[in-house]
């Protein structure tokens, strides 16, 4: 697993650099000069824009969007597919439930930071129920008892506190984000590292580093396994444009509640 993770990281970094450097060499020689199209955007000035999101970093973002497509295609999805192939479905669900249960901690402190009583209670109830009756989080029994999973992160907390979203940004591997959600992600990740270290979960013996790496790898695979989105699967030429809009809209809705 360790080795697999390391070569995975190396490959992804190499592709990331390749993606940054590419895109400069397109041949437009030997082509006759451009002629104006029959219809142009000038005709649309009498109407409002729709589905539009301001995107000052679009050049970087589009390149990252494409990079993520290739990273998925050549590295991440093959790993996820192998995982799905060799692991019984019941176990896959158990793994997802396990990591989702750990994620409740994040939802809990962010609900508290946003002073959301009901969400905090439900999340706390879920965490306690699933960690005990659900055997360490392997089963989502809380859901069957009517406690639906909530989702809060520090990006949403910042939003509730009135921090603006900042520009849209497509991160390598992580995909669509805003500056605010990226900040939130970093804070949540930092908090998690602090909690894991503070509780000394992996212990101090020789194996601990290897175990931690294996768990991290498994969590990464499970995360992608749970996300159904596939870059460019729609073949819709304006997919980037649509995804950007849907992402922003969905975050706005999430912050509202």
């Amino acid at each position: 697993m360790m080795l697999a993770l390391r070569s995975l990281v190396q490959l992804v970094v190499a592709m990331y650099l390749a993606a940054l450097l590419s895109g400069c060499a397109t041949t437009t020689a030997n082509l006759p000069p451009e002629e104006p199209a029959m219809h142009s955007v000038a005709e649309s000035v009498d109407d409002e824009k729709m589905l539009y999101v301001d995107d000052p970093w679009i050049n970087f973002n589009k390149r990252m969007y494409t990079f993520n497509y290739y990273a998925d295609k050549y590295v991440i999805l093959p790993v996820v597919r192998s995982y799905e192939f060799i692991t019984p479905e019941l176990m896959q669900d158990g793994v997802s439930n396990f990591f989702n249960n750990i994620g409740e901690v994040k939802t809990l402190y962010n609900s508290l930071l946003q002073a959301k009583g009901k969400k905090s209670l439900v999340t706390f109830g879920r965490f306690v129920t699933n960690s005990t009756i659900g055997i360490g989080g392997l089963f989502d029994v809380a859901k069957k008892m009517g406690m639906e999973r909530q989702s809060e992160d520090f990006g949403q907390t910042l939003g509730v506190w009135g921090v603006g979203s900042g520009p849209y940004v497509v991160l390598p591997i992580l995909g669509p984000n805003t500056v605010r959600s990226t900040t939130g992600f970093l804070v949540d990740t930092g908090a998690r590292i602090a909690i894991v270290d503070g509780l000394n979960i992996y212990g101090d013996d020789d194996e601990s580093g290897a175990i931690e790496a294996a768990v991290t790898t498994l969590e990464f695979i499970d995360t992608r396994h749970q996300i159904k989105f596939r870059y460019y699967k729609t073949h819709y030429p304006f997919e980037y444009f649509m995804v950007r809009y849907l992402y922003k809209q969905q975050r706005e809705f999430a912050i509202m509640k």
Partner: protein
Amino acid sequence: MKISALLLMLLLLLPVAGEATDGGYGYPIPGSYAATIIGTPEALRIEKPANISMKELLLEIYPDRKKPDIFFYDEGLVCNFAYQKNKAPLAFLIAGAGSDYDSDKLKYMMYGLYKAGYHVIALSSPTHPNFIVSASKDSVPGDLTLDAADLYNVMEKAWAAVKDDIEISDFVLAGYSLGGTQAAYVAKLDDERKIFNFKKVVMINPAVNLYDSIQRIEALLDGIPGGSRKIGLFFNRILDKFTEFYRSGDYIAINDQFLYDVYKAGLVSQDEAGGIIGLSFRIGSAGMIFTSDVMTNGGYVVPKNRVLKASDPLADYFRVSVRLSFIDYFNEYFFPYMQKKQPGLTKERLIAEEGLKNIEGYLKGNQKLSAMLNENDFIVDDADRAYLKQLFGERTKLYPRGGHLGNLEYRQNMVDMVDLIKILDEKGGAK
């Protein structure tokens, strides 16, 4: 995430008119637009097969074709393939305008047929960008004869790709909406080519004439404030309503409960519901228009001879393309293109050719073909429905409601489809 996810949410903002049941037909949504938008509630759909063996096929239809840089992710035509272990008939399915092989409607047709023992290959519409780039000979969709030839070619390649792995007894064919109309043309072509010898062909909510149907769809935008020139404004106002409703209610997420409440609250008017349908067609056609224009260097929405890079922003092209109606496409792009192929072609003749009347001699009384229609489907009118009934006689199923395709996934509809497609032996018994 589906491109249509948000639209779907918006589509659910509809007035409700109370549940309807009559004549033993249990599909519950009475309004035409509401049914079209909401479709079939999950609990009323046919159940998925407990086990289904399926995979995606990637077909290289034109291996030597040089694809434009911006379609770098297009590596061939993708289709769904579901297969039985034993010898069985193979059903080809054709999606409706702008839809792909993996659309919900096609999937549920696949489930229905798979449970009845068929192998299934599900194909994207010739108007879908993947088909235009990878499988269309000319990359200009809209002509029933040419699109049927492309579909037939794809079916031959798909068959070649799977025939060593499965045993096939017979071939059948079904399509919905535009795909239904195309199925009739594919069946006619098959009568000449005799590769598949389709035993049965089912058309679900087909257009009788394409030009008539696109006019009816475009007319849905006439009812919004300012008409079709203000679709951006319209979209933003509808979104505001939706947002406000979400903000004010006790919701924790955009889930089924929220959507159902939105539906019950009657948040949008009938005109607005029509506008939402018209707009969702426009969003689909924008993809078709842009893709075809890039493929042919047609100079319609992209300047002629411009080479787009994968990283180029396309927002302006979206804005231009979504503003064009199907009728604009027909008059300004499709008709001139067809005229170049057939000098002397008039617009009137082209319009007349793009429909079922054009192949009436083949269709009339042909026992192979059948149609499933809804009394309140707005892409056809009463004369069209009467015409289809006259063509297919008792092989026409007419439902009291369902709008356009809203009841397709409904249990009884899928049972009826399987029944219509059933291959009978000489004596009329099930084979």
